[in-house]
C-alpha cells in the first residue's frame, strides 16, 4: 500500500514536471529593443521638454487623465469618463478605481489635485505651463471624482490633458521622477544606463495587463543616423520609430526582414521669416519668397520624396485641413519681379539653420531657389543652443527653417510681435481666441480653415512640408503607430509574432 502510494506520488510529480516543461515555451519572455535617436537627460516629462521622455514613458509608465489614439482622438485613461457643464467651464472627471502606482501607493483624486497644483504653482518649471493657464481650480469631490473649473472655454483642454506635461504624478515620488519614474501605466521603469539604454518591464497589476504582450522593452540610444541603420541591419535593434535617415529607407523597404512606414507628425516645417524687420515686414517680399520656393524640389532633395507639402500652418491629416499649396505656386519669374518691385533684388539675407537634417538639407535647396530669383541667401548652420538664444529668444535672424512639432499650434501666430515670428496681427489673434474657445467641432474646423487661409494669404512664412515619421520595424512586430499626433508611442498594444 505504501509502495503504491509512493509510486503514485512519483507519477504525479513527473506529471507536474511535464506540465511545467510543456508550459515553458509559453513562459518565455517577450522582449523587444527599440532604437531612439535622442536620449533625454531627465525622465520627468513635467519638468523637461525633451520629446523622447514622452516618447518612451508617457502612456507606458506615466498616465494622464486622458490619452489620444493614433488619429488624435481623445480617449479615457486615468479618468474613465467625464462630464462637461453647459457653459463649458466645469469638467467633472470620474477616475479609475483600484489603481496603484508602481511603488505601491494608491492613486486617487488627491493625486490629481497634487499633480495639477504642482504644475500650476508659481515656481513650477513645467515646460508646457500654458496648457494649465485656463484652469481656475482643481477640486477632489470624492476619492474617485475630480472637478476642474476653467476661467474660459478651451477647445483643446481634454487633448492637452493627454500630454506628458499633464501626467498624474504622485506626491510621494514626484521629486525623484527625474531619475526613477513612477507612474500608473502598463510598464514599470526598470533601469537607465545613461548614454546606453533604458529598460521597462511589464506591470502585472495594470488594469488591462492581460492585453499587454510585451514583458520587457529596451530603448537603445543611437544618435548617429548611419549607426542607427547599421544597428537595424545587424538586427541588434527590433524597431526604430522615428528613423533618422530618409535616404536609407529604400534599403530597408527592399529587405523582407523589415517593414517600413511613412506616417505623419504634427511638425509643420516652415521657412520662417522675421516679419518684424525689413525686408520681411513687406508683404511683397514674403510673397516673392513664397513664389521662389519649389516644395516638390525641396521634398525630393531634403526628404527623398517622403513628405507631404503644406501651403499653410496646419497638418494635412487634420480634420480642418485645406490644401493651400496653390496660393503662391512656384514661379521664379514672378518672384524676381516682386523682389525687384520691393527694391530688394540682389541683396544678401541670412538663413540661420538649426542642426537638424531636414533643415540643413532644405536650406541648401532654398538657397539655390532664392538665388535663381535674384536673392543671395547666406546659409549659416548654427548649433541648437545658439539657435534657441539668437533666433528664438532674441529674434536675431532674417530667415530660418524649423519644424513646429506641437499639436494645435496655430496659436503661435497669435503670440504677438514678441514671438520670434515677429508677426503682429490683432485680427488673427482674435480669430485664434474664437478657435480655442469654440466647443462645436464643425464651427471650430470652419474657423481653423479661415485661419489657414489668412496665414497663407499673408505669406507669413514659406510653408514647406509636414515632417514625416519614418519607421523601420522588424516584419514580425505589430502595433507601432505609423503616425504620431503626439510625442508618445504606446507600447501596450505592440505584439511580436
Amino acid at each position: 500500500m505504501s509502495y503504491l502510494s509512493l509510486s503514485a506520488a512519483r507519477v504525479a510529480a513527473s506529471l507536474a514536471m511535464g506540465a511545467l516543461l510543456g508550459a515553458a515555451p509559453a513562459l518565455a519572455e517577450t522582449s523587444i529593443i527599440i532604437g531612439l535617436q535622442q536620449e533625454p537627460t531627465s525622465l520627468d516629462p513635467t519638468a523637461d521638454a525633451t520629446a523622447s521622455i514622452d516618447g518612451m514613458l508617457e502612456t507606458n509608465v506615466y498616465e494622464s487623465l486622458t490619452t489620444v489614439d493614433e488619429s488624435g482622438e481623445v480617449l479615457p485613461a486615468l479618468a474613465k469618463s467625464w462630464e462637461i457643464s453647459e457653459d463649458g467651464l466645469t469638467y467633472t472627471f470620474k477616475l479609475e478605481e483600484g489603481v496603484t502606482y508602481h511603488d505601491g501607493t494608491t492613486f486617487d483624486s488627491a493625486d490629481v489635485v497634487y499633480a495639477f497644483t504642482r504644475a500650476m504653482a508659481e515656481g513650477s518649471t513645467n515646460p508646457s505651463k500654458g496648457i494649465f493657464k485656463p484652469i481656475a481650480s482643481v477640486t477632489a469631490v470624492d476619492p474617485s471624482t475630480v472637478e476642474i473649473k476653467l476661467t474660459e472655454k478651451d477647445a483643446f483642454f481634454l487633448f492637452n490633458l493627454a500630454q506628458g506635461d499633464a501626467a498624474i504624478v504622485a506626491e510621494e515620488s514626484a521629486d525623484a521622477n527625474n531619475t526613477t519614474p513612477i507612474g500608473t501605466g502598463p510598464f514599470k521603469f526598470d533601469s537607465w544606463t545613461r548614454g546606453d539604454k533604458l529598460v521597462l518591464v511589464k506591470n502585472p497589476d495594470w488594469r488591462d495587463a492581460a492585453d499587454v504582450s510585451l514583458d520587457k522593452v529596451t530603448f537603445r540610444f543611437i544618435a548617429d543616423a548611419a549607426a542607427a541603420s547599421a544597428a537595424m541591419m545587424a538586427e541588434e535593434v527590433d524597431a526604430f520609430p522615428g528613423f533618422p535617415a530618409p535616404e536609407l529607407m529604400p534599403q530597408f523597404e527592399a529587405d523582407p526582414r523589415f517593414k517600413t512606414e511613412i506616417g505623419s507628425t504634427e511638425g509643420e516645417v516652415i521657412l520662417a521669416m522675421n516679419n518684424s524687420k525689413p525686408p520681411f515686414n513687406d508683404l511683397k517680399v514674403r510673397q516673392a519668397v513664397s513664389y521662389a520656393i519649389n516644395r516638390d524640389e525641396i521634398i525630393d532633395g531634403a526628404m527623398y520624396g517622403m513628405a507631404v507639402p503644406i501651403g499653410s500652418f496646419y497638418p494635412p491629416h487634420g480634420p480642418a485641413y485645406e490644401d493651400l499649396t496653390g496660393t503662391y505656386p512656384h514661379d521664379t519669374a514672378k518672384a524676381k519681379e516682386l523682389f525687384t518691385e520691393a527694391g530688394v533684388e540682389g541683396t544678401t539675407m541670412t538663413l540661420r539653420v538649426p542642426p537638424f537634417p531636414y533643415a540643413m538639407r532644405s536650406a541648401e535647396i532654398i538657397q539655390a531657389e532664392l538665388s535663381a530669383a535674384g536673392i543671395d541667401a547666406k546659409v549659416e548652420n548654427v548649433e541648437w543652443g545658439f539657435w534657441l538664444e539668437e533666433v528664438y529668444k532674441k529674434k536675431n535672424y532674417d530667415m530660418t527653417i524649423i519644424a513646429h512639432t506641437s499639436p494645435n499650434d496655430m496659436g503661435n501666430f497669435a503670440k504677438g510681435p514678441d514671438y520670434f515670428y515677429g508677426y503682429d496681427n490683432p485680427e488673427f489673434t482674435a480669430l485664434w481666441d474664437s478657435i480655442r474657445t469654440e466647443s462645436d467641432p464643425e464651427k471650430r474646423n470652419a474657423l481653423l480653415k479661415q485661419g489657414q487661409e489668412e496665414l497663407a494669404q499673408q505669406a507669413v512664412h514659406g510653408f514647406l512640408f509636414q515632417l514625416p515619421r519614418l519607421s523601420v520595424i522588424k516584419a514580425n512586430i505589430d502595433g507601432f503607430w505609423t503616425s504620431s499626433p503626439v510625442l508618445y508611442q504606446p507600447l501596450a498594444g505592440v505584439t511580436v509574432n
Partner: protein
Amino acid sequence: MGYFLFRRTLGFVLTLFAVSVVVFAVMNVLPGDPALTILGLDATEDALAALREQLGLNDPLLTRYVHWVWNALHGDFGISHSFGIPVAGLIGERLPMTISLAVSGMIFTVILALVMGIGAAANHRKPGDWGMMFISQLGIAIPAFWLSMLLVLLFAVKLRWLPPGGFAGWDDPVAAMRSLILPTVALALVQSSVLARVTRSSALEVMRQDFVRTARATGFSRRRILWRHVLPNALVPIVTIVGMQFAALVTGTIVIENVFYLPGLGRLIFQSISNRDLPTVQALVMLFAAIVVTANFIVDLLYVVIDPRLKARA
C-alpha cells in the same frame, strides 16, 4: 629631481586653473540658455525664470566661478543642470567605458606601430618597407568616422562577427572585449599609422650608428639587434609621440563613442555642450585636461628611464 617634481606640479595646477577660466568664460560667452534648452519652445516666461533661479543662473558670473572653484577644491563638482544629479556620479559611471577604450586603443596603437615600424626599418628599401608605408599612409588618410562605418558594415552587418555598437559592460568580459574591437581599431588606426612612421625613421637613424654595426659584426642575430639594441635607442621620439597620442585617443573617443553608441565620456561631453550644462562641461574639460597633463608628465618621467643620460640633467 625634487625641483623637477615641484616645477611639474606647479605647471599642472596652473594649467588646470587656466583651463577652468577658459571653459567658464567660453561657456558663458557662447549664446545659449540652459533653461530654454531644457524647457523647450513652448515654455512660458515664468517657468523659464523659475528654472533659471533654481539653477543659480541669476548670480553674477564671478560669484558663480568662485563658488565653483571653492566647491571643486572640496571635491564637489556640483549638480548637472540638465541631468539634475551630481556631476561626479555622472562622470564616474562613464569613466570605465572611456578608459577601456583609450587604453585598448593605446595598446593596439603601440603594438601595431612597433611591429610595422621596426618591420619597415628592417626591410628598408624593400617591398616590405614600401607595403607598410603604403598601409600607414592609407591609415593616416582615412577619416576615423568613415573607417568606423566601413568596419561596422563589414564585420557587424555583413559577416555578423561583432556587434555594430553598444558596450556590454565588464560583467561579461568576453562580450565587453568583443564590443571594444571595432571601436579600438577605428580609434587607433590613424594613431598607429603615425607612430609606425615615427618608429621607422627613428629606427633607421639608430641603425646607421656605429654600435649597431659593431653588434652586427659581433654576430648577433638580426632579430636580437633590432629588438634589443635598435628599439631601446629609438624610443625617445616614439615615447614623445605616444604621450601626445594618448591625449588624442582620449579626445578621439568623442567621435568614436557617437558612431558606436558607447556610453562614455565623449558622448556625455557632446550632450552637455549642446545642453549648455556648464557644471558637467566644466568638470569634463578639467578631467580631459588633467589626463593630458598627466600623460605628458609620465612621458617626461619615462625619458629619464629610457635615457639615463637625462637623469644628470634633471
